[in-house]
């Protein structure tokens, strides 16, 4: 760990934690796409992360919330929209890659500083 107080690292950790939970929720929604009466869930953490970044309180525990989606349910009471889940899955993966690249960029800068 670089430093617990490093804002960039904390923000990336927070985002990766939220994105991983979002991946799991999408996997659960798709697994239950045909389960009668099942209501899909969605994960949000961006607003909390943004306000933490704005106020500079990055030392608190990352806040990630899970809530049921409000899509209307189909004939069997299931409200999962498979197409939306597939798109969200791709977007979540790309965000994860972006976070990992950001972290690696940060690590490269530190490595350069150590070498010089």
């Amino acid at each position, binding site marked *: 760990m670089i430093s617990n107080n490093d804002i960039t690292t904390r923000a990336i950790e927070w985002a990766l934690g939220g994105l*991983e*939970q979002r*991946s*799991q*929720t*999408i*996997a*659960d*929604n*798709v*697994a*239950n*796409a*045909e*389960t009668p009466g*099942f209501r899909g*869930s969605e*994960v949000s953490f961006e607003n909390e992360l943004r306000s933490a970044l704005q106020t500079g309180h990055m030392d608190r525990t990352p806040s990630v*919330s*899970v*809530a049921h989606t409000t899509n209307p349910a189909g004939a069997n009471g299931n409200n999962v929209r*498979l197409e939306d*889940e*597939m798109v969200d*899955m*791709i977007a*979540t*993966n790309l965000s*994860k*890659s972006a976070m*990992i690249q950001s*972290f*690696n960029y940060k*690590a490269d800068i530190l490595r350069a500083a150590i070498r010089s």
Partner: protein
Amino acid sequence: MSSFHSLDIAATGADLGRTWLDAVAHNIANVNTVRPYDEEPFRAKLVHAAAVDGPGGTGDGVRIVEILEADGTAPEVYEPDHPFASQEGAVKRGVVDLVGQMADMIGAQRHYQANLSVIRSSREAYEAAMQIGR
């Protein structure tokens, strides 16, 4: 559960899709099955699935609760020459809703494919995570 949780969850969904497809195949294979008139007719197998609740509000996938059999009365046709016919010449056929089974087959296949997509995508994401710090 492993640390690659999305994979485990998608696997439960793919497992349901495969079981469901197996049941549909069995039902369609038996759509013309005739049993002796005084015996129970063939009844279509129906998969009962339910969501699994997980910790922290995130679900843990889906599980197969039980395999049920279709209820309803068996359709009868008049075939007096049939060896399984009753005294009155009625033959009891299986309880299979063929149109419903064909629709279920598409649903099961789509469900299986969607979960395989999640498995593929999760694997790529976890592989990317292996690059942290490289």
